[in-house]
């Protein structure tokens, strides 16, 4: 564990707009330096991506980014990040991803020059290694093109590099639907951590070579899958909450390996990373309802430095293109945050945002600044990533149990038995990686998980 102390050790210091280690782009956009900015992501309407449709796709990107930045200028938005999260085909064929990056960068440059706006592109190639079962994390035939897109995209002018990497997901999916906390800890705290090290050494090298900024990685395929399953009432909310906690050490690895932030929007574990590593973070909540429902619509805003819509398809709504609608909503959200900073009332606003959500759901509760600092403290106090994952889950469970006891948290009675079950299963995990690997050996289906691809 590189981080053994907290960058923010008092809940009061964990607040939107300010990070201990702000990041400044080439055009002068400072994230975490006292202001919040919107981060806007859009994707294609329902359509195939291939050589035949590609000319139309380029037009959609070109027009949409122009529409979005035009509206941003009209609303006097001073800084913005446009996230380009690629679709499979755009990473398989990096030429697509690179050219689309160029289109977005050109628009950002043009609007920055014309309106004095600071607009930057975040490039997020998807983790194509996951498009093969079982995935070969280190020897994937897809790895080369994925890294090429990072490299050439950075060359094309992308300012921030991010990914939602998937190491361990092949095991985690099954652990989730079985509410198997041992599987979760193994997938995130052993496999995920190992793969993050492997991958982020390469991404930070590319960023450094190209002079751009390594943004960070989210456990989207893990803890957000859990959140979606919990919203559908497929798994208990408490399980999703501890799954989020379990993702912290895994996502922290990017910063141990040289990433600087801003952490990507869909990682709600970003608040913990901000407390631990001091990096600025992008967050998403109610204004990302266009992409998914969530139980953390307001509390997720409490410590954001960028505020994002996650992703919206470029379809038409009554008010215009859906990405422009998202931009407008984000811009007003951000205006409110910045006005509270200007009038020195930001802590009050933060506490309202937090207070409005925490009693409704354990997933919201663990994102409250008090909880974040307490869990983060347990993480940095642990000796290694496995112990840290274990400690994060255990501390999250404690926080939830206390709140239920004090009647500060509404919890479905059906959930209670799961708190006990998770606690019991957790207690069986040996805090030694070798021993844990040994223990899990019999439960791993070698047709689904290739341990050697994690150096095991």
């Amino acid at each position: 564990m590189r981080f053994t102390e907290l960058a923010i050790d008092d809940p009061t210091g964990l607040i939107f707009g300010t990070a201990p280690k702000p990041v400044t782009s080439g055009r002068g956009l400072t994230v975490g330096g006292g202001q919040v900015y919107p981060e806007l992501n859009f994707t294609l309407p329902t359509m195939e991506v291939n050589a035949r449709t590609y000319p139309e796709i380029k037009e959609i990107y070109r027009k949409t980014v122009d529409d979005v930045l035009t509206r941003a200028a009209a609303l006097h938005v001073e800084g913005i990040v446009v996230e380009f999260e690629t679709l499979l085909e755009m990473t398989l064929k990096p030429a697509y991803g690179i050219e689309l990056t160029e289109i977005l960068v050109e628009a950002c440059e043009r609007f920055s020059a014309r309106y004095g706006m600071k607009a930057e592109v975040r490039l997020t190639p998807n983790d194509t290694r996951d498009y093969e079962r079982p995935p070969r994390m280190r020897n994937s035939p897809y790895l080369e093109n994925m890294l090429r897109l990072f490299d050439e995209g950075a060359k094309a002018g992308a300012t921030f590099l991010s990914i939602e990497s998937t190491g361990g997901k092949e095991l985690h999916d099954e652990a989730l639907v079985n509410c198997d906390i041992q599987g979760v800890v193994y997938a995130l705290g052993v496999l995920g951590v190992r793969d993050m090290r492997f991958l982020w050494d390469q991404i930070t090298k590319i960023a450094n070579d190209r002079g751009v900024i390594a943004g960070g990685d989210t456990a989207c395929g893990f803890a957000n899958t859990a959140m979606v399953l919990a919203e559908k009432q497929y798994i208990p909310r408490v399980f999703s909450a501890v799954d989020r906690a379990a993702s912290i050490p895994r996502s922290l690895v990017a910063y141990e390996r040289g990433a600087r932030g801003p952490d990507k929007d869909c990682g709600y574990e970003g608040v913990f990373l901000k407390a631990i590593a001091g990096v600025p973070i992008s967050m998403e909540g109610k204004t990302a309802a266009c992409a998914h429902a969530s139980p953390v619509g307001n509390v997720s805003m409490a410590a954001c430095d960028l505020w994002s819509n996650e992703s919206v398809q470029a379809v038409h709504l009554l008010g215009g293109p859906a990405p422009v609608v998202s931009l407008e909503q984000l811009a007003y959200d951000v205006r409110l945050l910045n006005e509270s900073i200007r009038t020195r009332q930001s802590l009050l606003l933060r506490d309202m945002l937090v207070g409005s959500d925490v009693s409704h759901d354990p997933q919201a509760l663990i994102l409250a600044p008090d909880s974040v600092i307490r869990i983060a403290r347990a993480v940095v106090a642990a000796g290694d990533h496995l112990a840290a994952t274990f400690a994060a889950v255990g501390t999250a469970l404690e926080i939830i149990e206390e709140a239920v006891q004090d009647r500060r948290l509404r919890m479905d009675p059906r959930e209670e038995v799961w708190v006990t079950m998770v606690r019991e299963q957790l207690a069986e995990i040996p805090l030694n990686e070798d021993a844990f690997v040994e223990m899990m050996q019999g439960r791993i289906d070698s047709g689904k998980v290739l341990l050697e691809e994690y150096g095991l």
Partner: protein
Amino acid sequence: MSLLTEISEMLQRGKAAEVKSLVQNALDEGTDPRVILEEGLLHGMGVIGEKFKNNEVYVPEVLIAARAMNAGSEILKPHLAGAGVEASGTVILGTVKGDLHDIGKNLVRMMMEGKGLEVIDLGVDVPPEKFLEAALERNADIIACSALLTTTMTEMKNVIETVAGEGHRDRFRIMVGGAPVTESFCKSVGADLYAPDASSAADAAVALCREKRAG
């Protein structure tokens, strides 16, 4: 409590070993294997499926019950074959080409099996031809396609066109589902049925098979 009720109860509680031995007991007592299947195993899964539909149990509880059912089925199968009993319908299931999401699809399989359907799960990233090939080979009633991505849901159209192109469109019912899929998308690609969740997919599949076999 009758033996059959006990099988159903133990299955609901996910007790695989108990279900196994109870099924054996019932066979030993000379109970008709069809009755054990219907009033023991399928009854138990029916209760669990209903509870899941009404948000009274979570997926892990359904999974554990399904495992208990499989344990019981293992014992029962040879006897059913002997009695000439066949499944009430056969479903070819898979996630379409380019899409590797399987949580939803696996749930659908479980729910369908719990309704007594035979499900051939082709896994993920399944090309159109493979759906057709399997359907022909197994003389299936239904082809059920899952997709989680807006870019891959369009693959469903290719499945339907492949089946139609080979002249087999009338022979199979085609179901579609997954987060981005809607009723109107279902219509637009010419599928026969859209199911919004795993439980209703299973119910709909049973109804489709019945209707198809009747008509």
